[in-house]
């Protein structure tokens, strides 16, 4: 089957065969603004990115270790040893008495690290943090890494479907903070950069420099 046939019936395509350069240029001007409303850029998805002067494999390994979160995130701490499904339970200190359940899915060949998380309950890990480490030599022609980090605006951010699992009288739901995710994640990726660049520049072990998994047996109980 040739390409024309496979594309037949697809509405709204703009390809150079039928959408000439002048038309494309016009459209691009139309679509390019001087400023963009925050919600338009960070509403449906929220991506932050940073260059980190630390080798990509080291950055990947650091991120792939769930306990590193205790160093570079603003508020997640005290993760337990993993259960049978690989889920660790920690606290998110940004809200009182809030457990965060988290599991890592990492792919060393692609250097992708996805954190599947949820507040309060661990049956449905719907808060997904998608991270990718890229060799800066490839994309910026210099040593180091580029880290991309995206969250998607899952509908549960707008309404907690498991209110019965939330601590009583907790005034805030994680999704209430979605409009500040760009800022919050920017701060955290700056933490990540500061830690990794400090350790790499000073020939220190990359870490994380946190409690061992063994020491964590029995953790995960939130007072």
């Amino acid at each position: 089957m040739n390409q024309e046939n496979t594309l037949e019936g697809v509405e709204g395509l703009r390809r150079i065969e039928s959408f000439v350069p002048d038309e494309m240029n016009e459209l691009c001007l139309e679509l390019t603004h001087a400023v963009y409303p925050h919600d338009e850029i960070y509403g449906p998805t929220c991506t932050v990115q940073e260059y980190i002067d630390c080798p990509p494999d080291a950055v990947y390994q650091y991120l792939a270790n769930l306990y590193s979160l205790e160093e570079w995130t603003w508020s997640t701490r005290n993760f337990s040893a993993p259960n049978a499904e690989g889920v660790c339970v920690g606290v998110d200190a940004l809200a009182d008495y809030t457990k965060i359940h988290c599991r890592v899915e990492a792919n060393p060949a692609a250097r992708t690290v996805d954190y599947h998380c949820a507040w309060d309950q661990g049956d449905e890990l719907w808060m997904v943090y998608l991270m990718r480490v890229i060799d800066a030599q490839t994309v910026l022609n210099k040593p180091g890494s580029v880290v991309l980090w995206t969250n998607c605006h899952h509908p549960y951010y707008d309404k907690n479907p498991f209110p019965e699992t939330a601590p009583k009288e907790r005034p805030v739901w994680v999704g209430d903070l979605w409009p500040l995710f760009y800022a919050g994640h920017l701060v955290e990726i700056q933490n990540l950069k500061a830690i990794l660049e400090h350790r790499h520049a000073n020939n220190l072990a990359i870490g994380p420099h946190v409690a061992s998994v063994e020491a964590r047996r029995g953790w995960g109980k939130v007072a």
Partner: protein
Amino acid sequence: MMTPISIAGVASHFPEQLIDNQYFFDETTGKKPIMFRGSKSRYHLSPEDTSAEMIEKAAKKLSAKLDFDMAEVDIILTHVTLPDLPFTGCGADVAQRLGAKSKWVVDVNSAGCVSFVYMMALAQSLMTTSNAKTALICNVQTAAGRIYSHPENRTNPQASVPGDGCGVALLVADDSRPVKAIVTKCFPEFSGDMTVASNDGRKWWEPGEVPFHIDFSEAKVAKVFARGNRMVPEVIRATCDQAQMKLSDIDALVTNQPNPIFLRNWREACLLPKEAHVQTFEEHGNLFGAALPICLERGLETGQIKANDNVVLAGFSHAGDFAAGAIVEWRAA
């Protein structure tokens, strides 16, 4: 300490030829130019029209509005896109037509689309360093009729965008309607990004059989666009800072009007509602330097600019070699 200046008034004049979009259709191929975004008409100079005559007519209207005898004016500044003559500007011709023996007659050839603000700054400097008390500043856009009416140019995609017109303003050395800040910024690194070109490769002044046109190299169009997007909001912010005002204190915005996209983007970047941005692109096209005085007059006529409004005048020139902004507190006369 600079002498305070005020804008006493503005007036405009347009040539007779009103050109509709149909004019730019290619009758041989039937091909319709794609770039009519936002435009319905524009005026074109005819070969007999001169910038001096346009200024004379606008200045006489202004003279009547303000009950001011232009023969008394101390300073005449002109900016004409494509001058009536090489070698000299039209300032002396204008002075003669107005019967003025002005001490300063200066034909400005820089600052393009924001030369109105540049001439305000120049006039203020001249008033500060001499006993001059009044200045007639004149913008004439002539490139539409003089370049884009040529049969070989008029089917170019950009041919329909420019429009001709003239706007003049009288500045006075007092604080009756004070200019609270003027900011001018040069970016000489971008001076080479706009050129004029002919399809036969000749210099514009060399004899030839094909017309020349304004040329932004294709490789640089995206950069010039991004530059304009950034530059004008930046200079507006700098102007507000100098006047110790916030963007939200702006009541009306008047800019050059290269196309509706820039207008939209500048307004959005300043968080201003559409009705606060005075523009006439649909009926006049890109008026180059004449847009500022013409739109200022339009805003006053339509009520978009009201007594005591903070009016920002701003824009950028050519491919970004210059940007300027001014704030006027438009007190009732």
